[in-house]
């Protein structure tokens, strides 16, 4: 009986372990006009991969990309008015994305629009083991955590699919 209870606790804790940092944004859901909350662990990704069509070029790329991933976790909010989230909400995430595990590779801040976007990489043994994206606008907030050995080139290539325009080539040093 105790063993079963322990297993149940471990099973419940698995999603927390799989996610590389905690979002702590649940309280924003009530204020949001639109919310996307996706928690896809490794087994869900592998299960979904079986239903992706290898003959479809777009789906084949996705299938290849997610094959090595251990999870994708996203929270995205759209608000009807400004100020629905606080700087502290962002800081609680940033504070977890610290060295030596995490390094910020890119940050964009527009004082005019009040928008910020940051990309962090997690490395283990000099290999990429995760990506975090933190994107905030006055009426939008999106946090992404991709867990596993992410192929950044494949990830960037996704912009040429799903109806999104393809990313333009950037100068050396500005490429993600």
């Amino acid at each position: 009986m105790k063993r079963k209870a322990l297993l149940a606790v471990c099973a419940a804790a698995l999603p927390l372990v799989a996610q590389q940092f905690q979002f702590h944004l649940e309280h924003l859901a009530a204020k949001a006009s639109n919310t996307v909350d996706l928690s896809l662990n490794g087994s869900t990704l592998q299960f979904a991969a079986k239903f992706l069509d290898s003959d479809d070029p777009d789906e084949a790329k996705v299938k290849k990309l997610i094959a090595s991933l251990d999870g994708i976790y996203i929270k995205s909010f759209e608000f009807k008015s400004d100020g629905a989230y606080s700087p502290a909400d962002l800081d609680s995430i940033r504070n977890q994305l610290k060295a030596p595990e995490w390094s910020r590779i890119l940050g964009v801040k527009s004082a005019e629009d009040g928008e910020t976007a940051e990309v962090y990489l997690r490395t283990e043994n000099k290999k990429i083991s995760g990506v975090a994206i933190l994107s905030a606008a006055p009426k939008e907030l999106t946090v992404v955590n991709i867990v596993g050995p992410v192929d950044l080139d494949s990830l960037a290539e996704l912009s040429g699919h799903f109806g999104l325009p393809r990313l333009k080539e950037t100068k050396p040093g500005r490429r993600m």
Partner: protein
Amino acid sequence: MDWLERELQQALERKMPPDGFAARVSAAAGKRRSFAPRWWMGAAAAVVLLLAGGSLEYREYRGRVAKERVLLALRITAGQLHYIQQRVQRESQGAPVEVRQ
């Protein structure tokens, strides 16, 4: 003829069955359960088939949902990357942009 032969002859002597023997045998044979399919066997088979079919259908449904969720996740991620790169390209002239490798 010795005693053994006489014993055997008496034991194997043809005898007529008692009255009503044939009728009793026929009645007993009629009461035996036949192996013909019963209604509940058909119902059970139908339930098994329905469960198997339903399970496959449910798996397909779960697969489609998982696939849509993955595509949505990657669509959001790609959208964010696209947005970030646009900002980098647009604002690298003046606005503060930090790029680290």
